[in-house]
């Protein structure tokens, strides 16, 4: 027979806490009693916590407002609320309401940069050598951008010669009722696919798209604002198939549409309506299967390491990430497993395309109305991917000096695995920074983000919110999709695509504006 376990103070305190709610097992109670018998500190803690519980349990309830029932009834009948999380309301909810009057909307563009020649506008100064080749300028030549004003080109209906739009979505009519979505090859003007609401897809507003690396499938996220929920589809561009992966509540960290590098698998995170459970769902283009890969209720798709190795994260007070091998396919629902050890305190690792670097979140999380958030702020970190294997302790906060605890941010790597963009920042304790975009380079200085990496103040027009950023592999260009708040429900939503040529030092960035005669809701993608 074994005696009581020897407890640390920390474990004893946890047992003291559990004892107050009757959540102790018999052996735990014995362990605790033995510890308390010889520990004044924990005995004092136990007494103090018992006092605290007694005080709280003695709080008297006050009556609910007399009109609460009437208010609830009015709300039920009048549609007082939508369950849209706070961090999603400024953009999409508003845009889709205003879209009632839309006649012809271009919703998504995919932009390719066919060569490495920087597309500099004719009226702009030539870029400095240091900025043109960031990998060769790790000497710290870049100086803080004082307050340059961006060289903004007038709105244009045509693209600069070095850019080419490959696809666009043409969505005529009332998109909140469900309009036909037409995918157009911009080079030829040919209609590639037409998606009919009620037939191919549910009605709603396409808000996000991701082309598979082999160009044969398109992942499409459609917002049904009235519910609200999002539905994710995979559209076969060479055939007729439109595959529904499922519906999801709106969630900050469930926005990733992740194609495997070979284009075989699409994975995304879906947050169940009602329960708020977040799970990863996958689609196999070879078998046509859609499989919910996880059943934990707190799982998020993070990024692909290779054609078959997928990183997923479990949200929670102590989040962790796991590596999964999908070489055998998606398997059966909820049966995906891994023998790989968890990587603690890593959430949503976003690997660079070459797999050598990783950006990830750290910090305790809490479940909100839908999905999980960093309730007290998270920290974005930058490390060598060896960190995920425990091979190096070197890790640093991505921001040299963050304005505050970060609640939400979006990250995208350029294809060169050197440049990356960070945008969509929201802070726990302060207003979000919807206009700021940072373009970092691993090869510049220590590779992290400081104010030097912030795009010029005037690159993004006043009142605009950046919703999508695609950094080019040359490290100097970005495609920004911005939308504007709508003054009234009946106003036409306005959005545009900005093609930014980044300059450093005293030279202002060059911005080419496409629009704002039409809606452009990303993504802009450089290949």
């Amino acid at each position, binding site marked *: 027979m074994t005696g009581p376990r020897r407890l640390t103070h920390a474990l004893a305190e946890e047992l003291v806490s559990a004892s107050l709610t009757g959540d102790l097992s018999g052996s735990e109670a014995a362990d605790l009693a033995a510890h308390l018998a010889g520990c004044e500190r924990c005995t004092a803690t136990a007494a103090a916590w018992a006092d*605290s519980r007694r005080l709280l349990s003695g709080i008297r309830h006050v009556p609910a407002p007399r009109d609460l029932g009437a208010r609830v009834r009015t709300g039920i009948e009048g549609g007082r609320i939508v369950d849209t999380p706070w961090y999603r309301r400024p953009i999409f909810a508003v845009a889709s309401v205003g879209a009632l009057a839309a006649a012809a909307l271009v919703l998504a563009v995919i932009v390719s940069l066919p060569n490495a020649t920087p597309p500099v506008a004719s009226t702009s100064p030539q870029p400095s050598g240091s900025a043109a080749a960031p990998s060769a300028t790790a000497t710290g030549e870049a100086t803080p951008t004082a307050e340059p004003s961006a060289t903004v080109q007038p709105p244009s209906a045509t693209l600069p010669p070095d850019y080419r739009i490959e696809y666009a979505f043409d969505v005529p009519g009332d998109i909140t009722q469900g309009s036909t979505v037409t995918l157009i090859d911009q080079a030829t003007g040919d209609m590639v696919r037409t998606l009919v609401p009620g037939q191919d897809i549910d009605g709603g507003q396409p808000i996000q798209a991701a082309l598979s690396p082999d160009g044969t499938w398109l992942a499409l996220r459609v917002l049904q604002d009235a519910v609200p929920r999002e539905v994710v589809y995979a559209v076969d561009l060479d055939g007729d198939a439109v595959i529904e992966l499922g519906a999801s509540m709106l969630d900050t960290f469930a926005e990733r549409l992740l194609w495997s590098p070979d284009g075989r698998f699409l994975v995304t995170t879906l947050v169940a309506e009602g329960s708020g459970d977040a799970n990863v769902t996958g689609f196999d283009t070879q078998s046509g299967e859609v499989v919910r890969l996880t*059943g934990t209720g707190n799982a998020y798709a993070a990024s692909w390491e290779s054609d078959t190795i997928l990183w997923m994260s479990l949200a929670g*007070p*102590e989040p962790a990430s796991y590596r999964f091998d999908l070489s055998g396919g998606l398997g059966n629902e909820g049966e995906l497993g891994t023998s790989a050890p968890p990587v603690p305190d890593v959430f949503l690792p976003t690997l660079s395309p070459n797999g050598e670097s990783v950006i990830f979140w750290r910090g305790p999380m809490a479940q909100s109305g839908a999905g999980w958030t960093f309730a007290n702020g998270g920290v974005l970190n930058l490390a060598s991917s060896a960190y995920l294997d425990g091979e190096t302790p070197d890790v640093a906060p991505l921001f040299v000096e963050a304005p505050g605890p970060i609640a939400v941010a979006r990250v995208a790597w350029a294809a060169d695995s050197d440049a990356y963009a960070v945008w969509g920042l929201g802070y726990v*304790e302060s207003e979000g920074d919807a206009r700021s975009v940072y373009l970092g380079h691993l090869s510049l200085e220590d590779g992290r983000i400081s104010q030097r990496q912030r795009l010029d103040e005037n690159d993004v027009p006043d009142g605009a919110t950046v919703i999508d950023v695609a950094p080019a592999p040359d490290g100097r260009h970005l495609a920004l999709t911005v939308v504007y708040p709508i003054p009234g429900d009946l106003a036409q939503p306005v959005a545009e695509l900005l093609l930014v040529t980044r300059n450093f030092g005293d030279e202002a960035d060059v911005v080419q504006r496409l629009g704002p005669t039409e809606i452009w809701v990303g993504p802009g993608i450089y290949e």
Partner: protein
Amino acid sequence: MAWTPRLAETPRVSVHETGVDREAAFASLFEEYATPIYNYALRMVGDPDRAADIAQDTFIKAYRKLDQLTDDAAARSWIYRIATNTAIDDMRRRKFTVPMGDESRHHDRPDLRPGPEAQVLGGVVDERIQRALLRLRPNHRQCLLLSDVEDMSALQIGEVMGMSYGAVRTLLCRARAEMRDALLAEGMTR
């Protein structure tokens, strides 16, 4: 590690499907939980008007999701979960609008001013307890209220907050430590 499906294995018994009149079921739910949910929201946000809004939104959401209610035994956890999420959303939305650089709102710095809730409740509950509660981190406040005011077990709290049993025990321990400090600052505990 093997991940096991959870949702798919949980049969859902819908109130609507069992033939119980939807309106009657909701009326019963409201009658039983209107005051507890209002008080829970009040302790969470410390403001009667906001608490009323949260309670209102909680029941509107509950009405819309009534079909998802598994059974009567689950109703309490279910409605508190909706209220918890609604309160979190409310708090986060309000934090989101605080201007940057306002040091008075730094999360490590307690607001020592008597809150509006304290003014309203003066003479009914101890103002200092509520003030101590409002100093806690929101998730600490939630689990402490669910534990010590609502008398829920760690398992029930986990159902409300969407956390595992072990995670709740850890969180509750931290919350008690923080509450002890907060009460000490009010001169209310040893």
